[in-house]
């Protein structure tokens, strides 16, 4: 799979979307508008945090994935997955049974991505030791956060730690291990089971890299269902050898405080994208002093709250905490069990650079931009300030900005229309037609069976 620029896996199912505006309000980058009664994502602005998916009452958002049968083309079929996946399965299945289940699905090798985590730990520490790197250093673990910073906080892009995530580590590790076993590179197919769309985007179009080393993506909830179909109730073969490099730290890595505890003398962990937004505003204003390291995650409870997980996030966290206790500390795992060239692997964790990609600018011409902003501000004065969303924009201000950018009209505001009607500027019929155009003709008919009214409850 080639690295598509700006790939987004999230799509809206027109048959399910009822244009209710919930997603539009939840989006941290105001990337959604309702057009002709349907949610439309602006892919330039989308950071893949999944808030829209989470907030949708009709499950209208779906996530594209690769066809699992693609793995058949490879001799060595590797499934890479974050440890949280183990926490999804019912208690009665142990990890040995889950690993066996994954093999029954068709994989030949099973790799949890957070190994050998010590390499990433060392690499990040090495980055932090360099005094020239701006503080607080911000983890690049969560790809939604990286995109949020590039787009909404471009000046903080320089604070991002130029190191890759565990799935990159594991991908390289898996390849090296299989080459040692005598595999040819082209015989190896890597598939990544993802907890979220942000990871999909970062795997398919990695920041600062031309091509992805992963051959396919499978959604974690889908893979979970596949494994559950074939998993054996009885104890399976011993496959513990494949977890030799897994550690307590690795298992906890994807959870809140999974990174922050290891880095810097003062570190902060924040989960939930709206919490992160509030904190970054402060950081951008230079009101955060003396902090060395920031772990920022888009989901509540970090990856345990990923949108493609099956289990309850709090139960997942608890299970993983218990599991982690059974594993050795990362520093106690001998380098000899890693077997591949450690320095070479470490080199692969370095990102050359991440550039800012400001999303909220009014164009490059400063005078024109100033003029547009002034016009938008004048328009806001005429809007009611209710932020109702009935215009198809998330708030009055966003509508005003859309207007000066030629993407919306005054008449999109239903309150303004009412006033114009009262002032005799437009007819009642014309006003209704305007609203029907925005929301679809059938939207306003009394009909207990229409979309959004039939057990699609809120």
């Amino acid at each position, binding site marked *: 799979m080639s690295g598509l620029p700006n790939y987004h896996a999230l799509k809206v199912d027109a048959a399910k979307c009822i244009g209710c505006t919930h997603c539009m309000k939840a989006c941290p980058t105001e990337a959604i508008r309702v057009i002709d009664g349907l949610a439309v994502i602006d892919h330039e602005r989308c950071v893949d945090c999944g808030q829209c998916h989470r907030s949708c009452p009709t499950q209208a958002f779906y996530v594209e994935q690769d066809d699992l049968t693609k793995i058949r083309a490879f001799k060595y079929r590797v499934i890479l997955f974050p440890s949280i996946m183990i926490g999804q399965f019912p208690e009665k299945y142990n990890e040995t049974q889950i690993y066996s289940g994954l093999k029954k699905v068709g994989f030949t090798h099973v790799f949890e991505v957070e190994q050998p985590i010590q390499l990433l730990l060392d690499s990040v520490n090495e980055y932090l030791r360099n005094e020239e790197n701006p503080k607080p250093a911000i983890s690049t673990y969560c790809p939604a956060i990286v995109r949020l910073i590039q787009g909404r906080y471009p000046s903080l892009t320089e604070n991002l730690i130029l190191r890759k995530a565990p799935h990159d580590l594991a991908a390289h590790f898996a390849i090296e291990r299989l080459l040692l076993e005598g595999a040819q590179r082209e015989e190896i197919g890597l598939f990544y089971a993802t907890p979220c769309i942000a990871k999909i985007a970062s795997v398919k179009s990695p920041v600062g890299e031309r091509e992805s080393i992963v051959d396919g993506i499978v959604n974690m909830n889908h893979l979970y269902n596949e494994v559950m179909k074939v998993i054996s109730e009885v104890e399976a073969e011993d496959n513990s050898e494949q977890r030799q490099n897994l550690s307590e730290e690795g298992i906890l890595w994807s959870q809140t405080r999974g990174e922050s505890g290891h880095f810097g003398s003062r570190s902060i962990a924040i989960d939930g994208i709206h919490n992160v937004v509030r904190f970054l505003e402060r950081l951008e*204003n230079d009101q955060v002093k003396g902090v060395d390291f920031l772990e920022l995650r888009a989901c509540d409870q970090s990856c345990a709250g990923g949108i493609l997980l099956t289990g309850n996030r709090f139960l997942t966290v608890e299970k993983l905490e218990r599991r982690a206790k059974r594993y050795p500390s990362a520093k106690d795992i001998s380098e000899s069990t890693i077997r591949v060239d450690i320095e070479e692997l470490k080199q692969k964790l370095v990102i050359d650079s991440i550039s800012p990609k400001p999303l909220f600018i009014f164009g490059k011409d*400063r005078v024109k931009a100033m003029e547009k902003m002034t016009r938008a501000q004048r328009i806001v004065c005429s809007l009611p300030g209710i932020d109702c969303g009935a215009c198809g924009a998330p708030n009055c201000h966003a509508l005003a900005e859309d207007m000066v950018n030629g993407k919306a009209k005054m008449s999109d505001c239903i309150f303004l229309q009412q006033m114009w009607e009262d002032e005799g500027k437009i007819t009642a019929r014309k006003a209704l037609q305007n609203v029907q155009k925005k929301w679809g003709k059938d939207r306003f008919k009394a009909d207990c069976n229409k979309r959004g009214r039939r057990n699609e409850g809120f």
Partner: protein
Amino acid sequence: MEGVWGRLFILKLIFSIQGGDFTHAGHPSSEVKKVLKQLDIDGKTIKNIVIALYEAEVNVVAHAWRGTVDVEIDESKITILVSDEGPGIPDIEQAMQAGFSTASKQVREMGFGAGMGLPNMKKNTDELYIESEVGKGTTVKMVNNFS
């Protein structure tokens, strides 16, 4: 915000500040930041402006009774006027020295009063002017040029 066409296009923003209201200090600087980001001003310049304006706001909150922030942005620079009704500054030169502070115990307990505000404003602006009349108030003018 309003725009004025003259020889230059000027974008204006106005805010008010309430003395003693530490919870809302920072609103004008956040709003100004938003506008500057939309104008694609470089991050370093924005940071300088936000830091300087925030210090000026906090000074009104900490030392004066009430104040206003007037912002004018044109193609090449931003001019910020922070004027307050308050006790004024008797000796501006002394006030400008790093570490000089008359902040009350209460203000210090909130983490302010290190005597670094004015020096910080100096450091983060291209031009800084202070006028003050004891018993009446203080006006701070800051100019930052865009690159």
